[in-house]
């Protein structure tokens, strides 16, 4: 722990998991860069401080060799800086660029969403978390990756296992074992597809990495594929449920969206601002620096709470409220700087333009199931964990 950083211990991990926002509000006001004792990390909670950090990668690099992510997934682009990072990112652009999302992925993802809804329609009820948001995210991700031969349920399992390993600060051997199993299964799935994608390139991430002008070697390719498995499933899944929850609990706003469908774009942005699917991510401190009234030392690590930044009162009035008509202002749910989410444009399309609107178009009188309260959980990653709804089938 650095000297000159206030330690904050008036909250438990269980409380953070239940609802971290009250703690963030206190920290923003009293100790915007603090040592969060129960989690054993420094935390930055203000929008402007996080922006400053993300604009200064010399002082706050993404590479940290202690990173559990490197142990769990290999050394992907997410933990690289400068030219080394830029070249890996450029290799992936042909899969993730906004025009590609629209021209190439949109028609395919519309078919997937329609197929899932078709399968549910007659039931008149569903848990949208497990019955819609998860299969949608997973089936889309299979195509994005280029692992079209696998079962979407396996991909969900692997993704969760990798994420759990990345967060395995308690060094639980069972979690490492599940992580390793997922790691090996993904490698086998990649190996099975590479010869085909060598022969017949397509728009998928694995193909883009193989055929880049400056092609990536297999170790880089495998690590990047795993970070896409880990980062490309839970976030769009959680954003889907959050957006639906925002709409169903604010019928006046839903009515306006039904009149003006261009507002779906704003519904998505407001949902990820309201409950950021990735609540925080880490940076290393490369040299002694003052930020947010605290002094950090070279070698420290700091968590950037983008979830807190998305509720910062200096940028958002009444940040806890879901309000698509709030003053338009940039949020930080996709991060900022060179690591700005690579999947942003795909997520906007898959969730904001396809998944969420399709539910409201196709399921008449969609509403929350009065017998089951939605559950929301998490602070490092946060979202609804159950969203039971009914409709008039």
């Amino acid at each position: 722990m650095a000297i000159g950083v206030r330690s904050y211990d008036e909250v438990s991990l269980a409380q953070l998991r239940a609802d971290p926002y009250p703690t963030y509000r206190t920290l923003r006001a009293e100790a915007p860069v603090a040592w969060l004792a129960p989690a054993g990390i420094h935390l930055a909670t203000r929008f402007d401080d996080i922006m400053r950090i993300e604009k200064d990668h010399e002082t706050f690099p993404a590479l940290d060799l202690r990173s559990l992510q490197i142990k769990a997934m290999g050394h992907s682009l997410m933990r690289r800086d400068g030219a080394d990072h830029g070249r890996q990112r450029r290799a992936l652009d042909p899969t993730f660029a906004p025009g590609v999302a629209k021209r190439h992925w949109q028609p395919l993802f519309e078919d997937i969403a329609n197929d899932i809804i078709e399968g549910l329609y007659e039931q008149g009820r569903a848990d949208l978390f497990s019955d819609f948001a998860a299969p949608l995210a997973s089936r889309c991700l299979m195509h994005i990756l280029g692992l079209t031969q696998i079962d979407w349920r396996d991909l969900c399992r692997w993704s969760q296992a990798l994420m759990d390993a990345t967060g395995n600060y308690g060094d639980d051997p069972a979690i490492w074992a599940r992580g390793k199993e997922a790691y090996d299964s993904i490698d086998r799935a990649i190996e099975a597809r590479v010869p085909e994608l060598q022969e017949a390139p397509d728009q998928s991430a694995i193909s883009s990495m193989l055929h880049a002008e400056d092609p990536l070697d297999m170790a880089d390719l495998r690590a990047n594929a795993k970070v896409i498995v880990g980062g490309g499933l839970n976030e769009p899944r959680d954003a889907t449920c959050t957006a639906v929850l925002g709409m169903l609990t604010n019928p006046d706003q839903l009515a306006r969206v039904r009149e003006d469908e261009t507002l779906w774009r704003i519904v998505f942005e407001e949902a990820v601002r309201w409950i950021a699917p990735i609540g925080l991510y880490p940076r290393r401190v490369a040299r002694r620096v003052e930020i947010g009234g605290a002094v950090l030392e070279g070698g420290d690590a700091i968590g950037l709470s983008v979830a807190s930044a998305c509720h910062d009162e200096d940028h958002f009035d009444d940040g806890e409220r879901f309000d698509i008509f709030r003053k338009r202002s940039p949020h930080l749910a996709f991060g900022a700087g060179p690591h700005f989410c690579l999947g942003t444009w795909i997520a906007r399309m898959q969730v904001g333009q396809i998944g969420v609107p399709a539910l409201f178009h196709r399921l008449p009188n969609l509403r929350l199931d009065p017998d089951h309260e939605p559950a929301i959980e998490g602070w490092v990653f946060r979202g609804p964990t159950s969203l039971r709804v009914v409709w008039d089938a």
Partner: protein
Amino acid sequence: MPKLTFVQSDGTRMEISAEAGRSVMEAAIANSIPGIVAECGGSMACATCHVFLDDATAELAGPLAADEDDMLDFSAVPRRATSRLSCQVQVADTFKGAVITIPETQV
């Protein structure tokens, strides 16, 4: 150093001097010009650094690359003939009296 004038959507004007070779986005951020958000810090991933150049400057700035062209279709305020992502435009000594208009919103 070349002078750049930024015009906000409400008509407010601010003039700055910018070093040649930097991007217009970097010059704007360094001078705290409001309205250029630049979420991705110039890696051409976010489309929140959208600007409209005056005709002469657009000519001097040269043609845009295919990926910039593609991303401009996704800016919050619809593109026009002289739209650019300001992180992709390098300030040049030839930019005399450039007038750069900032759209009403970037998000």
